[in-house]
């Protein structure tokens, strides 16, 4: 289209505007899923398996059912439609009917007049379990004699990537073994929503989620209802970070509402939330890096193993990312990656911010530091020397087509000012020492360390998935001037998407008054609020729909000019609420809005491909790069840590809301800091031992240092406004940067995160391995459930 607008409307793209949902949020009036309420409402409750692997012999609900206040109890046999669901393969039972595969698996649901009645009644349900032997170790899961989690074996997916010559020689080799623990998204708002039965036999579900349409695609077949009878509406989302990609209480609440004929609300407690959503995959990683004497990488071998837990969730995409990013943002001519995700009887793992990329980066950045030491080269210089650039070929054979200012990201990060040194013996507030006040130490053994990390990941969905987003834009004359309404099913989860969509509409139409309507399934799918994709995808859809509305406006202007006998003297433009032709004013927008103009458009990103048997293909759309430098202080007597400062630089394409972008960097950094230093779901023999915020620690304001961040703005070609997704990259790099700083301070190996105090003072030795896990025999690069036909007729979101 040749028409360009140069709007000067306030609150457009590039400004740090206030959130569109900010006022209700600060007032406490924003309705999160857990705040919903309806007349005659019942409370749903879930009974979960205490065993990681067991056969269900019988379930006796008689005593629970006669409890006053209980309205319904449902078991697996009561599910009217399909008995299983899943994001990629429907391998997860709505309610277990014969076998439970992890501790926490739902076995029965009930509805009662209040949460306490529901909880007490659920305790009266008697389930007779025959406990089976469980596989709770990811390497044991690969053994042929291991208990089988599913009938088709324990390998969920194996990725094999070969690039160049695996036998290529190198002057210097470094090897490493790394482990990462199971992290929780720990979004502040636990899973919640309310299902309301409708007169047409259908159901309306108000739920805090990340993708309404994919939820519906899983819910409707289980309810045995057509899609149009299952209407989803976004309830307020108290943070997501991947935890809300999978269905949690959705189907259960709908089943109970349809059974009782009354609205049913379900709101998980914090403890239940730890069982009610997937986690970040624990990993074991073996790496070998070879370089020439001058520090040029020539050969990288990566073996990565992920524990997927009992059900698939998004595991096949997670191992895809971990494998394709296994060599890092570096030019390496010869690469072999063997990536496997296995089923175990541990809690299911799936999406969490930067999935797969986080685990890989912890490994490859430690390797880069080892290599720098082995070669006596400055670690930042080594990274600069090997960094990818536009035109670089990735291990998948994919050529980087967009912008990739990796060297600038590294240089700008490294150039950020260092924090002041505290002179030895100087007075300092005890709160500023590692561990804060009340320690037995006075900081006699403080060691400062500095660490650096670079990382990257894909933006939007990959591997041949036809990723799209729809949006509808309506321009009408209102009492206060022209007004725009944007309808989109894209989920605002806190990151500020709705604010960005409003900014885009303002910029495209030159109208300040923009309303984002509540997301629901009345408009087409926007895809998931995941993978840093919504600014590009739904932003792109809103931009297209606005352009179509503008064209409709111009069409009306042309008609008026033609009917008055005046031909347009030049190109039509829209600026500050005025339509002009060849610079001559024709009229204000309102003059052409006797009827509103409404347009619906769908945005697609350019197509990608699945990987072939050698792991080759244009698998990803676009990449975002980030670097962080961490400065830490370690108390070598106590093993306590204070992160003094984080410096960050990120390749963002273009910042549509700079304050929001900095907020993403800071928040993502905090989650990476937590992963480096404190966050781990402790699973022993398949049982979670710390399902609470008392025992699962996330960073507080005392743990977080100042974050100095720089945005590298080089617009990405062929994406709306040149903006790259920004939500995930800081989470990838902050963990390895902090651990590198800890290594620098202590000289210890520290090859597992989270790093514990005992690791820092040498009470725990580094984790060791007997060698890379064996490569399983699978038919090809597709996920194994495909081969056994589990995907047939099922949702295929991420090939």
């Amino acid at each position, binding site marked *: 289209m040749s028409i360009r607008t140069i709007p000067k409307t306030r609150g457009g793209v590039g400004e740090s505007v206030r959130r569109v949902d900010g006022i209700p*949020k600060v007032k406490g009036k924003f309705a999160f899923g857990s705040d919903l309420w309806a007349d005659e409402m019942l409370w749903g409750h879930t009974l979960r398996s205490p065993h990681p692997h067991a056969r269900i012999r019988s379930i006796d609900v008689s005593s629970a059912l006669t409890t006053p206040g209980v309205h319904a109890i449902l078991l697996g046999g009561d599910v009217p439609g399909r008995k299983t669901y899943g994001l990629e393969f429907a391998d997860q039972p709505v309610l277990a009917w014969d076998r439970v595969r992890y501790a926490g698996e739902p076995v029965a649901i009930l509805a009662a007049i209040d949460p306490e009645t529901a909880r007490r009644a659920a305790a009266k349900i008697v389930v007779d379990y025959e406990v089976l032997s469980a596989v709770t170790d990811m390497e044991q899961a690969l053994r042929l004699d291991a208990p089988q989690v599913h009938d088709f074996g324990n390998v969920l997916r194996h990725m094999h990537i070969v690039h160049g010559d695996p036998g290529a020689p190198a002057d210097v080799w470094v090897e490493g073994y790394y482990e990462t623990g199971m992290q929780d998204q720990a979004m502040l708002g636990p899973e919640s929503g309310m299902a309301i039965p409708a007169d047409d036999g259908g159901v309306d579900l108000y739920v805090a989620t990340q993708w309404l349409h994919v939820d519906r695609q899983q819910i409707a077949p289980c309810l045995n209802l057509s899609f149009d009878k299952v209407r989803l509406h976004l309830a307020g989302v108290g*943070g997501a970070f991947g935890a809300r990609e999978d269905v949690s209480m959705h189907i259960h609440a709908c089943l109970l509402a349809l059974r009782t004929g009354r609205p049913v609300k379900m709101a998980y407690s*914090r*403890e239940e939330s730890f069982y009610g959503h997937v986690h970040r995959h624990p990993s074991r990683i073996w790496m070998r890096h070879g370089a020439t004497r001058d520090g040029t990488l020539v050969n990288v071998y990566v073996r990565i193993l992920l524990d997927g837990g009992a059900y698939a969730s998004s595991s096949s995409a997670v191992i895809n990312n971990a494998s394709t990013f296994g060599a890092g943002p570096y030019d390496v001519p010869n690469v072999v990656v063997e990536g496997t995700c296995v089923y175990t009887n541990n809690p299911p793992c799936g999406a969490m911010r930067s999935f797969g990329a986080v685990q890989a980066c912890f490994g490859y950045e430690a390797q880069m530091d080892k290599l720098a030491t082995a070669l006596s080269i400055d670690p930042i210089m080594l990274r600069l020397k090997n960094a990818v650039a536009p035109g670089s070929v990735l291990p998948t054979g994919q050529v980087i087509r967009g912008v990739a200012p990796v060297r600038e990201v590294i240089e700008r990060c490294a150039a950020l000012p260092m924090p002041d040194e505290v002179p030895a013996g100087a007075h300092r507030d005890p709160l500023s020492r590692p561990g804060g006040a009340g320690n037995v130490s006075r900081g006699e053994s403080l060691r400062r360390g500095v660490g650096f990390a670079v990382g990257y990941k894909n933006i939007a969905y990959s591997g041949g998935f036809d990723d799209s987003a729809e949006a509808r834009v309506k321009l009408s004359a209102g009492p206060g001037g022209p007004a725009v309404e944007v309808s989109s099913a894209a989920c605002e989860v806190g*990151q500020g998407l709705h604010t960005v969509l409003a900014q885009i509409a303002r910029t495209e139409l030159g109208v300040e008054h923009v309303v984002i309507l509540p997301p629901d399934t009345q408009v087409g799918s926007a895809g998931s609020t995941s993978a840093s994709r919504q600014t590009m995808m739904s932003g792109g859809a809103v931009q297209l729909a606005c352009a179509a509305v503008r064209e409709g406006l111009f069409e009306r202007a042309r008609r008026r000019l033609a009917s008055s006998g005046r031909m347009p003297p030049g190109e039509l433009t829209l600026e500050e609420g005025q339509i002009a032709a060849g610079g001559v004013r024709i009229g204000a927008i309102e003059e052409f809005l006797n009827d509103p103009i409404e347009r619906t458009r769908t945005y697609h990103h350019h197509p990608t491909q699945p990987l072939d048997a050698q792991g080759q293909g244009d698998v990803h759309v676009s990449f975002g790069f980030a670097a962080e430098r961490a400065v830490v202080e370690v108390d070598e007597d106590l093993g306590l840590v204070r992160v003094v400062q984080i410096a960050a630089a990120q390749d963002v394409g273009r910042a549509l809301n700079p304050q929001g972008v900095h907020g993403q960097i800071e928040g993502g950094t905090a989650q990476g800091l937590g992963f480096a230093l404190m966050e781990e779901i402790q699973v022993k023999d398949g049982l979670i031992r710390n399902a609470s915020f008392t025992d699962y620690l*996330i960073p507080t304001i005392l743990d977080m240092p100042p974050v100095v961040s720089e945005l590298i703005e080089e617009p990405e070609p062929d994406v709306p406004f040149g903006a790259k997704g920004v939500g995930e990259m800081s989470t990838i790099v902050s963990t390895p940067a902090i651990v590198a700083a800890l290594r620098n301070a202590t000289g210890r190996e520290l090859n597992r995160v989270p790093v514990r105090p005992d690791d820092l003072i040498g009470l725990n030795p580094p984790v060791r391995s007997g060698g890379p896990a064996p490569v399983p025999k699978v038919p090809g690069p597709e996920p194994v459930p495909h081969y056994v036909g589990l995907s047939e007729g099922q949702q295929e979101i991420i090939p």
Partner: protein
Amino acid sequence: MLIRAKVNGGWRTADVWPGASLLYMLREHLGLPGSKNACEQGECGSCSVWLDGELVCSCLVLAAQAHEREVRTVESLSSDEHLHPVQDAFLEAGAVQCGFCTPGLIVAVADLLQRDPHPAEATVREALSGNLCRCTGYVKILEAVFLAARRIRETPA
């Protein structure tokens, strides 16, 4: 059991289960869902309210303990037209993302600035160390506190 409490300036009664928390009474009996339930253990501060002027985690207080006492919640800080300076500063500084921790933080910050209008950074960090936020990394929350403190000091009483 019947509980009578002065809530946000008016006397209210609720018939609650004896084991109910003050948070449950506020949210489910009195229609005040501004205080959030995120941990049930007093770890996260999302349910912060004032009980007789003292900052408490309402999930750790029994509803019965509030009997014949005064409770103030986040809903008391703003009117239809006006935001509390702390609320406005949170919006301006970009300290709100998902917003689930926000009401508790705003109550905690308002409480701090009431006691100490000119807090040092270490004081702010200590005062807010019982309020978990998962979205922001606290950087902009800290900025919002200093912005609000300045605005409150500059506003003529």
